[in-house]
């Protein structure tokens, strides 16, 4: 039931072996050194051709992975059909708008009361500039993108345990952290503490660098000055005319800065995944799924819940029930099948794949995450606090406040992403009723933005473990499960392949789903053409 023993496969098992014995990091080093890992990144549109006459592929799920698969295979000449549980395309690519109704598992229903044009992205909300696959399809589908603001120096870092619970601007935290660390390092360097680590010549260069990086004075000290305030902000900024003289601000003390732990918010925008520039579709992330669904309108069957998947020598048959009309289970057939149903759900569907792929499916739980959107009567974060997009970080359970990256300066209402949580905090958030999620989030938000109390209008909260079509946020791989099961989840098992973010090394990103689907259709196509 597994793939033929081609060169690629034996290389893959070599990597798996390295992964098992030496750890995943060494495995990827080995893969990279053989220019193998690089094969999975987007290299421009794929061109498949020469599908055997009448060959068909049944696709399960109409998220990114299912729709990329269907689009590319149809273009190559295959007959494709998609079965989709929801009454819409997009899967986790999804936005909630005013007028929408969302019922989560357990039957809790929310009626979204947002104004026209306002939305919450319960799932994906930002696209890195290097996610070339997603960006390719966005352009292909004619979906307009705009900047997503990730890092805002004027947003806050907030700790209930520091500075009397008063938030600090991100720029103050970063400037003071950099400044003090630069001061400390240059002090030890000048005392000879680093003599063994750097040459004398390099030491001089480094000292100059530290002075520049930390905005230090001529004595290599981080002191209250115009130079310093140029980083952390002024008490009274430079102006024009009579009142123009700037007054520098007071830095946090070194001790307070360290103790506050606010510095731990600094790294949040440094990782490759979220480095500027980032993008979002105009009108909500869900615009992408919607546009893709339109493109594939005649091949998607909605309201179709797959309950059984069987393959034999002649093809693959999926049994499904119509969730609206009900009635007896029906079947759909394809010569081959690409199944993009999340592993959480798939682990509960009978499917006759081999033991290795079944083990991969059964050992992939989905992580917790919640998002809460609060509509405010006015955009007070812009009007009162000059915060235009970006993220505030807090130690409260809501963890983040994301400000909208669009409609700046617009009068009227706006929607804050007022909670975005992971880990055990998200588990607890999911266990609340939707109304409680909204209420708690409002309380946390008001500790940072007191205006929220009076400006609050309506809200909606989504806990991903209660999302009926995924039972979770994303495939929760560990190093151990990657080593044990990753190659098996990527395999061609007879006539079945799996695709989705869970079949990628970029889990919980749309690009992972896209790249996984592109890899699946290319490998499946050559498998079919070679076998025909």
């Amino acid at each position: 039931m597994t793939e033929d023993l081609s060169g690629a496969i034996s290389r893959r098992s070599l990597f798996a072996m390295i992964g098992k014995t030496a750890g995943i990091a060494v495995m990827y080093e080995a893969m990279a050194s053989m220019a193998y890992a690089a094969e999975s990144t987007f290299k421009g549109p794929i061109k498949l051709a020469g599908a055997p006459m009448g060959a068909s592929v049944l696709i399960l799920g109409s998220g990114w992975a299912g729709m990329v698969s269907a689009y590319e295979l149809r273009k190559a000449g295959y007959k494709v059909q998609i079965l989709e549980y929801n009454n819409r395309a997009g899967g986790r690519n999804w936005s909630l708008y005013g007028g929408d109704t969302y019922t989560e598992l357990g039957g809790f229903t929310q009626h979204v009361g947002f104004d026209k044009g306002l939305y919450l992205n319960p799932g994906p909300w930002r696209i890195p500039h290097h996610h070339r696959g997603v960006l390719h399809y966005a352009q292909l589908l004619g979906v307009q993108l705009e900047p997503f603001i990730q890092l805002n120096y004027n947003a806050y870092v907030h700790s209930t345990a520091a500075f009397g619970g008063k938030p600090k601007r991100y720029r103050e935290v970063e400037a003071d952290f950099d400044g003090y660390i630069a001061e400390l390092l240059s002090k030890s360097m000048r005392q000879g503490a680093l003599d063994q680590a750097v040459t004398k010549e390099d030491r001089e260069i480094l000292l100059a660098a530290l002075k520049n990086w930390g905005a230090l004075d001529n004595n290599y000290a981080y002191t209250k000055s115009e130079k310093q305030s140029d980083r952390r902000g002024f008490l009274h900024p430079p102006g024009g005319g009579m009142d123009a003289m700037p007054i520098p601000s007071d830095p946090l003390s070194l001790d307070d800065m360290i103790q506050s732990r606010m510095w731990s918010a600094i790294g949040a925008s440094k990782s490759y995944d979220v480095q500027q520039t980032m993008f979002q579709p105009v009108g909500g992330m869900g615009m992408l799924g919607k546009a893709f669904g339109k493109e594939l309108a005649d091949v998607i069957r909605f309201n179709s819940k797959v309950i059984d998947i069987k393959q034999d020598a002649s093809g693959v048959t999926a049994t499904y029930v119509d969730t609206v009309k009900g009635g007896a289970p029906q079947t759909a057939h394809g010569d081959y099948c690409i199944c993009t149903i999340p592993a959480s759900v798939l682990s509960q569907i009978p499917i006759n794949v081999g033991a290795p792929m079944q083990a991969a499916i059964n050992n992939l739980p989905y992580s917790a995450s919640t998002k809460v959107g609060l509509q405010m009567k006015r955009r007070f974060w812009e009007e009162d606090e000059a915060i235009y997009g970006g993220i505030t970080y807090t130690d409260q359970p809501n963890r983040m406040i994301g400000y909208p990256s669009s409609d700046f300066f617009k009068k009227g209402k706006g929607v804050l992403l007022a909670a975005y949580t992971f880990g055990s905090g998200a588990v607890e958030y999911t266990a609340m009723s939707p109304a409680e999620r909204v209420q708690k989030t409002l309380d946390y938000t008001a500790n940072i933005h007191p205006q929220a109390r009076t400006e609050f209008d309506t809200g909606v909260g989504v806990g991903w473990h209660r999302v009926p079509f995924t039972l979770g946020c994303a495939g929760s791989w560990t190093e151990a499960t990657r080593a044990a099961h990753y190659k098996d989840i990527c395999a061609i098992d007879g006539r079945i392949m799996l695709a989705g973010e869970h079949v990628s090394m970029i889990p919980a990103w749309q690009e992972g789903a896209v790249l996984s689907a592109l890899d699946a259709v290319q490998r499946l196509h050559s498998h079919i053409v070679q076998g025909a």
Partner: protein
Amino acid sequence: MRKLSFLIAGAAVAALSGTAFAQFASGYSWKTGPEIYTHVCQGCHMPDGKGATGAGMYPALAGNRKLASPLYPVLVMLKGQKAMPSFSDLTDDQIAAVANYVRGNFGNSFPGTVTAEQVKALRAQAVQQQMRAPG
């Protein structure tokens, strides 16, 4: 050199203890069975313990005969099971408390109790959770 390694070691410790803004929290503060059930388990098994069904499902714990075996829920929590992630970040006491709670409520009244010592003895089988934030 010593100073530098001190600084680096210090930074690593701080990163671990700097949980204030760590996007990923693990562990729970709740003590009693009903508290733990309400703040952890009911996200999936629902407030009434009856589970739920969508494209996939969460099984009912109410009237679930598999709970007759006292250590079964303990192992499910420590190891996870298919779409249920492991809850190995619950303490031995917490796992015992919530196991006893689900075995004795929601219409269940299975004999026997679970102790923290029994949980501890099964810890070696615990499965670690992944700590990676989504996009």
